[in-house]
């Protein structure tokens, strides 16, 4: 059994420890909260004048660059029905504010209202005697939604009317769709044919290209030959020029000789004409006296041939060929070569 005084003492020690612990924790907790919320920090006041104090209350957070630097401390309704909102921020941040500093109030859904300070860019610092900053209110999500609703409602009405019209013209639309489907199929077919045509054209163009290349080669060869011929022709022309030059040199003498020759020929022709006119008078009588001489000579030769030994020295004439289209014996006789 534990001695009563010892137990009593132990209980007291434990209770005292708990008391000390509780006091320390309470001081620590309260002190930390108070310190962080600026209870022991020097603060500076500034204010703005708003058209309304809606959404603003003492304790509303004041932020600078997203960090909490203070809070709203007071709201006063002015005689002109505007609201003077006084804020207290940490002294060190007040020095950063310029004369054109701005306070913007905004509130997101389910979030607390916030006043965001913009330090401004003026060269003049914010006056400590009259620390007034400008103010504006950012539109809330509800206000934006209302604005959107106002803009979208007429559009939705129009869409509703359009959809009603479309519903009424459902049959026409079906027909249009069928036609469009057919047209689409036609277009697809046409596209396929075009594709085939293009493929063929490509093939033919490829062949034409080859032929063109060949023709070009041939043309180039022909041109080469033409060039060669032209060169030869040029040579020939040169030679012709030389020949013509020599002809030109010799032609006058040749013409003179030709003229003499012609004159001599004319004289010869005159002589021949005189001889022929003299012969024309003597030749007919001569020819008439020659015929009995010839007949006599034939009879003499015939008589010699038929007598011995001449008859044996002369070979018998070959049998005459009978003309195909004649039966005349005289013909056989006349055809026999002498």
């Amino acid at each position, binding site marked *: 059994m534990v001695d009563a005084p010892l137990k*009593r003492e132990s*209980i*007291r020690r*434990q*209770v005292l*420890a*708990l*008391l000390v*612990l*509780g006091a320390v*924790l*309470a001081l*620590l*907790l*309260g002190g*930390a*909260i*108070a*310190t*962080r*919320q600026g*209870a022991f920090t020097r603060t500076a006041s500034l204010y703005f004048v708003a058209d309304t104090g809606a959404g603003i209350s003492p304790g509303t*957070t004041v932020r600078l660059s997203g960090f*909490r630097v203070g809070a709203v401390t007071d709201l006063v309704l002015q005689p002109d029905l505007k609201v003077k909102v006084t804020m207290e921020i940490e002294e060190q941040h007040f020095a950063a504010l310029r004369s054109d500093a701005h306070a913007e109030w905004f509130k997101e859904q*389910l*979030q*607390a209202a*916030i006043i965001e300070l913009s330090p401004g860019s003026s060269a003049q610092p914010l006056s400590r005697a009259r620390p007034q900053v400008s103010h504006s209110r950012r539109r809330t999500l509800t206000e934006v939604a209302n604005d959107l609703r106002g803009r979208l409602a007429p559009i939705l009405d129009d869409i509703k009317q359009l959809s009603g019209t479309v519903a009424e013209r459902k049959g026409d639309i079906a027909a249009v769709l069928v036609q469009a489907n057919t047209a689409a199929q036609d277009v697809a077919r046409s596209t396929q044919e075009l594709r085939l045509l293009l493929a063929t054209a490509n093939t033919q163009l490829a062949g034409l290209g080859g032929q063109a290349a060949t023709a070009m080669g041939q043309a180039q060869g022909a041109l080469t030959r033409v060039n060669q011929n032209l060169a030869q022709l040029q040579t020939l022309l040169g030679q012709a020029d030389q020949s013509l030059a020599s002809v030109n040199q010799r032609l006058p003498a040749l013409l003179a000789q030709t003229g003499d020759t012609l004159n001599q020929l004319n004289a010869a022709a005159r002589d021949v004409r005189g001889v022929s006119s003299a012969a024309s008078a003597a030749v007919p009588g001569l020819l008439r006296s020659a015929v009995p001489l010839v007949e006599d000579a034939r009879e003499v030769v015939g008589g010699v041939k038929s007598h011995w030994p001449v008859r044996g020295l002369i070979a018998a004439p070959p049998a005459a060929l009978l003309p195909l289209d004649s039966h005349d014996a005289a013909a056989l006789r006349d055809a026999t070569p002498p």
Partner: protein
Amino acid sequence: MIAASYRLALGYISMVAHALAHRGMLADTGVRDGLWRQIHFTGVRALPYAAAVAVLFGAVGVTRLMALLGDDNEEALKAIVSGGLGELGPLLTAFIMIVRSSAAIAAEVGLMNLRSDINQTLWQASMHEDEVVLPRVLGGAVGGALLVVCFEFLTIASAIVASAFTLGTTVASELDDFLLAADGWQVPLSMAKGAMFGAGIAAISCYHGLQVRRDVGEVAKAVAAACAGSLSFVIGVDVLVFALRFV
């Protein structure tokens, strides 16, 4: 029903009034020993239970709420800190005191009443009675306040650590968010509520313990009545404080 409630309320108030009227009895060694014992039982012995509940409440309840409402939602954070710590902290601590101290006080006082035959004469004159009510009411108040501040500290610590772990932030940033969202007056106010709850629970338990007159069977009824009365008192006071904020 209303008459019974009225009678009970008067009885509870008489206990508190009696303790306040006899506050000079704290000079007595026996009374002071009773006070030490009551603080030890209500505060020191209950501390492990309160600490476990506080850690669980902070790590699970607050963290889940912050994950649901958003860790950057300042309004939600303020609501959690104010409601969770300012209201639920003292309330949960009071429940722990009801479970432990209320039943114990009622049973102890009831048995003392049976054995010592405490009667109206002694109630008026003897310091023996003062040993029963004053140290328990005062000890309940001190123990309740200490339990609340320990409960809140552990709740905040576990909530900050758990939030930093689950939300992927740092302990420093979570602590900063909490310190900005909390109000300095919440700590003394919640301690005052804890003290009020402790004193009330002790007074109610003493009242029902002193109602045991004839046999041991009445002790059980006294314990049950003390627990029910304490619970009603705590809820009633909490509702009253909540309503006073909007007045």
